[in-house]
C-alpha cells in the first residue's frame, strides 16, 4: 500500500510544480519573470488588479466563455444527431462517411487559414454581423470542426445502448424523434458531458484561427489576449499573464468538477465494447 502513495505523491508533484510556479508568479508583487521563484516570497494581488484595470481582460474572458459555451453546445447537439444516424440506421455512404469524418480532421487546418481568411473577407463585406471580430463568425468557424472525433466518441457510446429499447418503443408507435430525444439522449449523458468538456477546452485553447480572426482589443479571446500580453514584453508582463492563466483555468476546472462522475466512464465506454 505504501508504494502506491509514494507513486501518487511523485505524480502529484510532477503535475503541480508548473502550476505552483504560475501561482507564485501571479502573486509576485514585482510581476516579472526573472524575479519569480517556485515558492512565493511576497504576496500581493497587484497583478490581478493590473490585469483588470489596464487590459481588456474582462472582455476577453466574457468573449471566450460565450464562444466556448456556444461552440460546445453546438458540438454536443450536432454530433449527437449525427451519431444517432450512424449508430441506428444503415444507409449508403455510412461507412465512407464515418471514415471521411475521421480523415478530414487530419488535414493540417492552419493551411486552410489563407482560404478561410479570403472567405471571411467576403463574408465580412456581405454580412458584417458574422464577419471578422464577431462572436458569431468565430463560433460558426468552430462549428465546422464539431463533427469529426466527437461523432466517433458518441457513436461508440450509442452502440452500447441496446437496440431493443428503440425497437420496443417503435412497436409502441414512437417516432424517431421521440426515440432520439426521449429514450437515447437521457441514456448518453456521460458521453454528452465528455464531448461538451472536450469542445469547451479545445475552444478556450484555440489560438491560430482566433488570432487572425479577432484583431480588435475588445473582441479578443483569452488565448489571443494573453498571448499578446507577453508577446514582446515577456519578462515584465509575466505576473499579469500568470494571473490571467489562473483565472482562465477556473471555468474549465469548475466544469471538470461538475462533470467528473461522467468523464471516466464516458471517455472509455464507447471504445471498450469492441
Amino acid at each position: 500500500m505504501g508504494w502506491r502513495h509514494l507513486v501518487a505523491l511523485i505524480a502529484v508533484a510532477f503535475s503541480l510544480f508548473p502550476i505552483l510556479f504560475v501561482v507564485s508568479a501571479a502573486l509576485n508583487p514585482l510581476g516579472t519573470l526573472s524575479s519569480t521563484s517556485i515558492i512565493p516570497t511576497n504576496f500581493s494581488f497587484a497583478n490581478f488588479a493590473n490585469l483588470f484595470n489596464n487590459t481588456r481582460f474582462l472582455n476577453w474572458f466574457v468573449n471566450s466563455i460565450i464562444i466556448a459555451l456556444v461552440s460546445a453546445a453546438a458540438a454536443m447537439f450536432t454530433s449527437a444527431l449525427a451519431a444517432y444516424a450512424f449508430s441506428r440506421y444503415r444507409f449508403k455512404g455510412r461507412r465512407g462517411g464515418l471514415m471521411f469524418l475521421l480523415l478530414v480532421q487530419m488535414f493540417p487546418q492552419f493551411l486552410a487559414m489563407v482560404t478561410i481568411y479570403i472567405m471571411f473577407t467576403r463574408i465580412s463585406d456581405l454580412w458584417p454581423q458574422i464577419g471578422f471580430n464577431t462572436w458569431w463568425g468565430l463560433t460558426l468557424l468552430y462549428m465546422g470542426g464539431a463533427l469529426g472525433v466527437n461523432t466517433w466518441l458518441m457513436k461508440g457510446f450509442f452502440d452500447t445502448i441496446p437496440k431493443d429499447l428503440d425497437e420496443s418503443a417503435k412497436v409502441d408507435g414512437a417516432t424517431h424523434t421521440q426515440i432520439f430525444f426521449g429514450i437515447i439522449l437521457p441514456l448518453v449523458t456521460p458521453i454528452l458531458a465528455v464531448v461538451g468538456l472536450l469542445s469547451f477546452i479545445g475552444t478556450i485553447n484555440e489560438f491560430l484561427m482566433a488570432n487572425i480572426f479577432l484583431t480588435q482589443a475588445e473582441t479578443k479571446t483569452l488565448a489571443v489576449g494573453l498571448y499578446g500580453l507577453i508577446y514582446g514584453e515577456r519578462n515584465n508582463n509575466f505576473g499579469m499573464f500568470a494571473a490571467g492563466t489562473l483565472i482562465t483555468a477556473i471555468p474549465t476546472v469548475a466544469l471538470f468538477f461538475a462533470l467528473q462522475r461522467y468523464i471516466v466512464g464516458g471517455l472509455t465506454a464507447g471504445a471498450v465494447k469492441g
Partner: protein
Amino acid sequence: MQSTTTKPTREAPPAAKGSWGFSGSTPLALVGKIVGLGMVAAIAVWLAIPLIDQGQWLMLALLLATTAVIFLIYLQPRRIPPKYLVPGTIFLIIFQVLPVLFTVSTAFTNFGDGHRGSKQDAITAIEGASVQQVPGGPQYVLTIAAKGADTTGDLAFLLYDPNTKQVQLGTDKGLEPAVGAQVGATGKVTAMPGYTLLNAGAASARSAEISAFSVPTANGAIRSSGLSRAYEGKKTRAYDAGCDCITDAATGGKWTADNSQGTFVAANGDRLSQGWQVNVGFGNFARVFGDQTLRTYFLGILVWNFAFAFLVVFGTFALGLAMAMALNHPRIKGLKLYRVLIVLPYAMPAFAMLLVWRDMFNQDFGLINTLTGLDVNWMGDPWAAKLAVIIIQFWLGYPYMFLVCTGALQSIPTDLVEAASVDGAGKSYAFRTVTLPLLFVATAPLLISSFAFNFNNFNAIAMTTEGGPFPPDSPTAGATDLLISYSYRLAFGESGAQYGLAAAVSILIFMIVAGISIVSFRRTAVLEEIN
C-alpha cells in the same frame, strides 16, 4: 456488437408512410418542425438580401439550392438519416471541406508572394512600380481610405488637386470623381461616403501596402510620397504584347515572359520579383523530393516527427497507465484528491502553460535549471530542445491518458484477471496476457487519434521552441521542427510566402497521417465493427 441481433432499420416507421411530412407527427414534433424550418427560411432571407444588393447571383443560387435541399430533407417522411446528418454536415462542408479543397488545389500552383494575381495584374503592378516622378508633373494632397474596415479593406487614394480644387477617387482601376467627399482647409478629405479614412496609426500599419499602391492613369500612374502627398509620374517599364515581354525605357532592359513559371526573365536569368499565378502541375511535389536542400530537411524532419509522435503517445500512455494502476485500488486513502491533483494539468489552459514551460526552460533564470542545479542550454542545444518539448508534452498529455486508462481498467472484468492468476500464472503474467491486451483494444482508437493529433501538434512547437534551435546553414528548418511547423514557415515565413509549396507539403503530411491511421484502424478491427 454483442447484444443486438435486430435487423438494421432502413424504412421509416409506418405511421408516417405515404404522408408528406406533417401528418403522423405528434403536435409537439409538428410545432418543432415548423419553428425549425421557419428559422431556416428566416436565416436564408437574411443571407439573401446582401447577395441581391450586390448582385452575387451565383452565391444566391447556391443559397437557394441549399435551403431547398434542407426543406426537402425535412419534409419527406422516408429517409431519416439525412435529417440527423444535415445540421453538422452543412458547417463541415462550408468551413472545413471547402477550405481544404481550395488549399489542395493551390498545391498545384505557384501561389505565394509575387505570384498572387493574373498576368495582367502582374503587368499593371510592374508598370505601376516603375513610375517615376517627372519635374513639374501634377501633385495632389493625399488622403488614404479603405473600402470597409480600415485594417483589411481595399485601399483607395482620395486626391485633392490644389489647382482645380477638385477631389478625385483613385483605386487600382483608375480615377473617378469622388462623389460626396468633404474637404478640410488643408485639402485633406474629412469624410467620404462608403469609405473609411485611415488615421495616421492605421496608415502607418499598412505603409508597405500604401507605398506599393498605384492608381493607373493614361500615361503613367499616381503614387504616394509619404502619407499625405501623391504625384502623377511616368512609367519607365512597359509591356509589349508583340514580344510578350517587359521593356525598361530608362535602362534598355528586357524581360521575357516565362508562361510556365509565371515570371518575367531577362536573358541573363534575372527575374522580376512580381510574377503571376500559374499551374505548375506536380512541380511543388517534385521540388520537395528533387531539390537537394529541401529533400534533406524534409527527411530529417520526417524522422523526428515520427519519433516525437510515438514518444509522446507511448510515453504519456505508459505514465498514465502506471498511475492508473497504482491508484486502481479501492482502499487507498485520499484517492479522490490524488485523482483531482494529477488531472489538474489537463484543466489548465494549454496555450498558456506551453508559454510558461518555455520560460521554465530558460537557461539563465528558468525554474528547471534553478531547481536541478543544471546549466543546460535547453533552447539552444538540439538534443536538449528535443527532450524539452517531449517533457512538456508528457506533462500536458499524461493526465488524459490517466483518465482513459482508469476508465479502461475499471471496465475490465476482475474475474478474468483473477482467473489468470489462479491458473498458476504470476501477477505480471496475468497483466501481460489479460490486462494489457484488453487495455489496448479498449484504448486503441484514442491512441490512434492521439498519434494523429501529436503528429500535427503545431502548438507544442510554435509556442515553445518555435522550431529552433536552427543550425547556421539552414535558417528554415530547426532541430525541433515538425512537418507542420516547417510548412507553416514555408507558407507564412519571413523569406516570403510560398503557399503552393506549403500546400504540397501539407498534402504529404496528410497522406502520411491518414495512411497510418487507416492501417492502424484496420488492424484494431475497428473498421470491421462499424459495419
